């Protein structure tokens, strides 16, 4: 029996450029994992490959998620199976309000599961409770998605989407970048509230202070040149704080 999420010897490229070179990683239900690594080590590529971004080509290896072959599934099938990516740079959707966006997303799941569309009252309830918890106003829900919002507001809206869609596996790509201290706390509390024995997190970040205070990971992986070169518990962040990534990069080359 395979693990909850099992990435084995994954190879992927963008255009002609190989980025992932035999990455292996296992995550069990209820765990919080952190991925750290220098720029260009493949952190964002991994999150995009897990979501099925068509700009990335998988050239080898396998990914199984809850017993399913993830790499054979479309982007939307993966999302409906419970995978969620909080984008590093959220995309603007002019003319589409956040509430319309979430209505489509929720109903897409229900349609795929053979359920009826959500009625207006249940939908509003689901939206409102989560918006309040994350300091998101009605006005922000009515405005076009990510258009004219600050970097921090966009990230907060990503966490909001995660809270509305209640995915099983949440990937947070550089969530703390572009956010001020207060916004990071609000987003961090959003993550903490969502912790559950059935839900796992994969958090990509450079910011050990944010990771220690808001994320409190069980496992830390260091990525260099498209592979995991070191794994450990939270204490691995102390090594990074002290010595940086230099030692790990040497290991990747060797």
């Amino acid at each position, binding site marked *: 029996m395979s693990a909850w999420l099992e990435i084995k010897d994954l190879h992927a490229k963008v255009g002609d450029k190989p980025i992932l070179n035999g990455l292996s990683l296992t995550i069990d239900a209820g765990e919080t994992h952190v991925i750290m690594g220098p720029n260009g080590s493949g952190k964002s590529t991994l999150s995009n490959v897990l979501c099925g971004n068509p700009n990335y080509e998988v050239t080898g290896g396998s990914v199984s998620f809850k017993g399913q072959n993830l790499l054979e599934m479309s982007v939307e099938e993966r999302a409906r199976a419970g995978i969620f990516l909080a984008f590093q740079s959220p995309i603007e959707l002019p003319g589409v309000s956040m509430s319309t966006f979430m209505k489509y997303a929720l109903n897409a799941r229900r349609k795929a599961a053979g359920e009826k569309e959500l009625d207006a009252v249940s939908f509003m309830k689901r939206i409102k409770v989560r918006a309040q918890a994350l300091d998101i106003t009605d006005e922000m829900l009515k405005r076009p998605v990510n258009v004219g919002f600050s970097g921090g507001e966009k990230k907060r809206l990503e966490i909001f*989407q995660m809270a509305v869609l209640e995915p099983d596996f949440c990937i947070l790509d550089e969530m703390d970048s572009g956010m001020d201290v207060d916004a990071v706390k609000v987003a961090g509390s959003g993550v903490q509230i969502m912790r559950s024995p059935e839900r796992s997190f994969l958090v990509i970040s450079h910011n050990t202070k944010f990771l220690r205070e808001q994320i409190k990971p069980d496992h830390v992986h260091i990525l260099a040149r498209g592979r995991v070169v070191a794994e450990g518990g939270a204490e691995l962040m102390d090594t990074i704080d002290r010595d940086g990534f230099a030692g790990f990069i040497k290991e990747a080359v060797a």
Partner: protein
Amino acid sequence: MVEEISEITRLTVDAGRTAVFVEKQLSDKAEIVVEAGARVKHYRLHEGANHALSVKIGQGASYELVTLHKGNGNLTLSFDLAGEEAFCRSDVVYMLSGDRKSLIASDVRHNADNTVSRQLVKGAVTDKAFATFEGGVFIPYERKKIDGAQQHRAILLSPDATVKAVPRLEIYADDVKCAHGSAIGSLNKDQLYYLRTRGIDEADARALLTRAFLDEVFDSIEEEDIREDFKRLAVFEK
């Protein structure tokens, strides 16, 4: 007060009158005269076969058109800003599907001083359909303080769909502000990916982005019922 009318052939809106017309059925050829100081909003939700509309706008009068065109024929629009300080807005949404082939020709003539025109044309073309937009703005010699703007944007939703844009700006005067732009493209891949990562099927994601693109025209309609009617009817014909 919104008036529903059918098959206009000749219509004169008397001086100083304010009117909102919703045209239900179109004639082949319609002529509208908006007399001095009158204010007209004209909404065309349905179309017939080939259709030509010409509007003459008098001194200080205002004429605003929003029309939905599905390409079951050609659409010919001409606007004559005949009196000083006349205003004309002429927005078009076109949605062509199947193997429809349609010419949308518009001609805005600033025949008096201090006249203003605004035109936003947005199109979505799918299957093997072919749309041509010919957008003319004509400003004669010695006209003063003219302000014209024309924007055309189209999205191609299939590899076999085609849009051709033919702008015709004939500006013979100096005291002119005239903005013009045309862009034809596909749906944004990053936006499609973003929607799909939230579980929305590719087909629904495409429909949602197309809708949002066209809604820019409809969202400027003040009358809520009419705005919603446009949005309901703005779907591709089989």
